[in-house]
């Protein structure tokens, strides 16, 4: 039976009627039009559906919409500000870290949480941080470089 719940996504409140067996991923994509969150496997293996929930990354294909009620959710659509793209997004564009782009949303969100926790990650630290996001195109090299470059840039920005 459908139930109306309120989801807090990118600091906006959405009232949606959801079935118990509906995932957060499907709700974002097919009900709310937030299609930046991608679907690659539906069982937690690829990380394309990564969103930030209460400050940590999760696979939205393994979260029920009803479980997400009352939590703060950030999707790729929530990263831009009035000033434009988030430094990570800019770095991904400039460093060539994007090929097909299907992993990109999840990758950037994982990197975002990584940098929130550790603004000066090592290369190994970056690889650990994005280890749950599979990318078939890049071999991760330019992604790692982009995260490093964003971290450097953000540090300078703070000083």
């Amino acid at each position, binding site marked *: 039976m459908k139930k109306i719940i309120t989801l807090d996504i990118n600091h906006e409140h959405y009232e949606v009627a959801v079935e118990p067996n509906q995932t957060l991923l499907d709700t974002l994509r097919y009900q709310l039009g937030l299609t930046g969150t991608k679907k690659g496997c539906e069982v937690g293996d690829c990380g394309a559906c990564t969103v930030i929930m209460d400050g940590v990354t999760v696979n939205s294909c393994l979260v029920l919409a009803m479980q997400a009620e009352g939590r703060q959710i950030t999707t790729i659509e929530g990263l831009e500000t009035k000033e434009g793209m988030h430094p990570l997004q800019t770095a991904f564009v400039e460093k060539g870290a994007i090929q097909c782009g299907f992993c990109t949303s999840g990758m950037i969100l994982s990197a975002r949480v990584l940098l929130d926790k550790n603004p000066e990650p090592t290369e190994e630290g970056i690889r650990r941080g994005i280890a749950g996001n599979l990318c*078939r195109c890049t071999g991760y090299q330019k992604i790692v470089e982009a995260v490093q470059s964003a971290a450097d840039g953000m540090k300078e920005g703070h000083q």
Partner: protein
Amino acid sequence: MSQYDVIGTRAPRVDAPAKATGRAIFVDDMSMPGMLYGALLQSPYAHALIRGIDVSAALKLPGVKAVVTHKEAGLVKYGVSPARYDETIFCYDKVRQVGDNIAAVAAVDMATAVEAASLIKVDYEELPAVFTIEEALADGAPLVHDDYKRNISAEVHQEFGDVEAALKECDLIKTTSLKSKRQDCAFIEPQGCIATYDLSGNLTLYSSTQTTHYVQRSLAMALGAPVGKVRVVKPYVGGGFGSKASASHLEMAACLLAMQTGKPVKMIFDREQVFLHGRARHQFVHTMTTGVKKDGTIMALKHEAWLNGGAYSSFGIATVYYAGSLLGGPYKLPNMKYDGYRIATNLPACGAQRGHGGVIARSCWEQQLDMIAEELGMDPLELRLKNIMTAGDVTCNDLDMSSLGMKECIEVVRDASDWKNKKGKLPQGKGIGMACGFFVSGAGFPIYRSETFHCTVTIKVTEDGGTAIVSTASAEIGQGSDTTFAMIAAEGMGIPLGMVRIESGDTDFGVDLGAYSSRQTLMTGQATKQAAENVKMQVLDALSKELHVPVEDMDIKKGYIVFKKDKPDLSALKTRYIKEHREWTDNPSLDDELSFREASRIAFFTKGTIVGTGMYKPPELGGKFKGAAVGTSPAYGCSAQIAEVSVDEQTGRITIEKMTDAHDCGQAINRTSVEAQMHGSMAMGLGEALFEEVKFDDKGRLLNGDLAEYKMPTALDMPPMEALIVESHEPNGPYGAKEVGEGNIMPTIAAVLNAVHDAIGVRIHELPLNPERVYLAIKEYREKNAKQ
């Protein structure tokens, strides 16, 4: 200083901002009013007769709008190679693999469609099945297709020179083999599509494909529609690598359902279906015998290959040809004999994947060359240099190396990796290895024989002259082709990249065979360059008439008209432009300069919309023998790679410490994108070398149809990779450019095999090098040594 303004830079990709912000639209992101959802009914058996199909219960389920089987679809045979059209949209007499398609349902939502498909009753009579090459070839083995005697779906027999005679003159003759496993393309976006059908009989398919053109043709053929009524549009695509290079049953079924219902129909594969219908890399078994002189001169290669092809032919004929022909270079090899067999089995069909047909053959040979070098007491890198081809050489099987920076690539990786101080000198458990490879930049013919252009491009300048719109049916699937063509167009017109907008991937934009065989940069690039130069000429021609300056005395650079001799008086033109410009917000350029925008606006007054066109088809290529079309290409990219590894000898686990890669791409159009292709190729090669293997049980059912148990590399499995660009300036390529997308995967596996040997002294002749295989190889090696 580069002679180019746009080419050779690191311009950010034109599609990157959309992808970085989640704005880029992929097919599953689309929806349409009234859209229905489709589901397939697939065979649970690997081989069975179909006795009957009863769809009545499915039709009765509320919400179901259509159910289609072979009755509605018809029995037109289609496939990839016209010589082996062996598929119908739905099975009618029997199923040949688990997952074979029997029926499709369209319903108001996905849950209903899936439920309805499960209500279709099929009466099967199971048949004995064959899964391995040995089983398929056994006496009395059941036939997958009645037409393929002994289950051989294709065979190749070629000899160039006289191998037996040459072997007699050799000082060392070595025979080795290599067995690989089936790999999957494992792109992150599963295939999907939306089909629509309008009241005038126009069928439009939005699909995650690499080849809109072939999909269009296949749909028209299988559905019996005029080609002109079929349009295929490619939104952003989340990787292809070969699996999205031919029309799929999903696309066929969606179109059929849309035609039946008159509504848009969406169908998306789940991950298991990607594995079942991916048609990715075959399993290969190669045996090679190479003869060399004492000084390392390679004399002859005798080569036999067996491919497990699965239930349908798909790209398989090309695959089995490539497996032989791509050994013709990059070493001087006067004599080569090849016998290749592609075997039909009751496993899911195989097709093309990055490095089509050539990867395992290359791996086998490059490992063997290392063993030969060792026996001759030579540095394996020197052995390669000794035999290396250079620009202008033609292989024994007629591949013309019109440019070839192979030698430079070897030298570059040798120096960058400090090879000389590492090879043979690293501690036990650590090793370094190298290998080379090359690949085509497109093929001489489409998959079907035709005189068609392989691509046509149009560039249209907007009325104000401020934007040039490049239209091409080529496929941006992640490799960066949109950016490449936008850059070529900008360079060709002499304007900044920011003034170019590209639209691609729609059959309405012209003809383009699509993204496969690493063809687009060279071929679509040539057509784009031609179209751009055509636009430039038209603008200059109009200007010439206004200013009375000969066209030859003008050029366009960085968005401005360059007057090679005296600058004419521009004031009249300027005044005209300013008058024309009154209510427009963009300002005219400085008084003494004339911009492309101003010039194009003036040109518009006399010529109307400026449209430049370009087209390309390869010139006549070498080779008159049977199968010469598979391997001959206008140009060849090549690369040398060095892998550094460490091996945990107690567990057999390999860690790749570093990869150093040099690739000759002729001319980098976009340096960042070239490196990115090099990285991606290495990643896929390392996955195949170390982990990847699609597994089946003894009933032909998938054992690891997910990305947990099918193990592609994660960020933690990948080493730092150094990508070094070599530019040999290909005469047949646009601005000297040729392929980069596939040549780089050719050396990867062998570089790892050779590095592992350097680390632990063990040669392994089966992939992948997962911990257990390496551990057992070490154990066997030690036991053998202990006995001696």
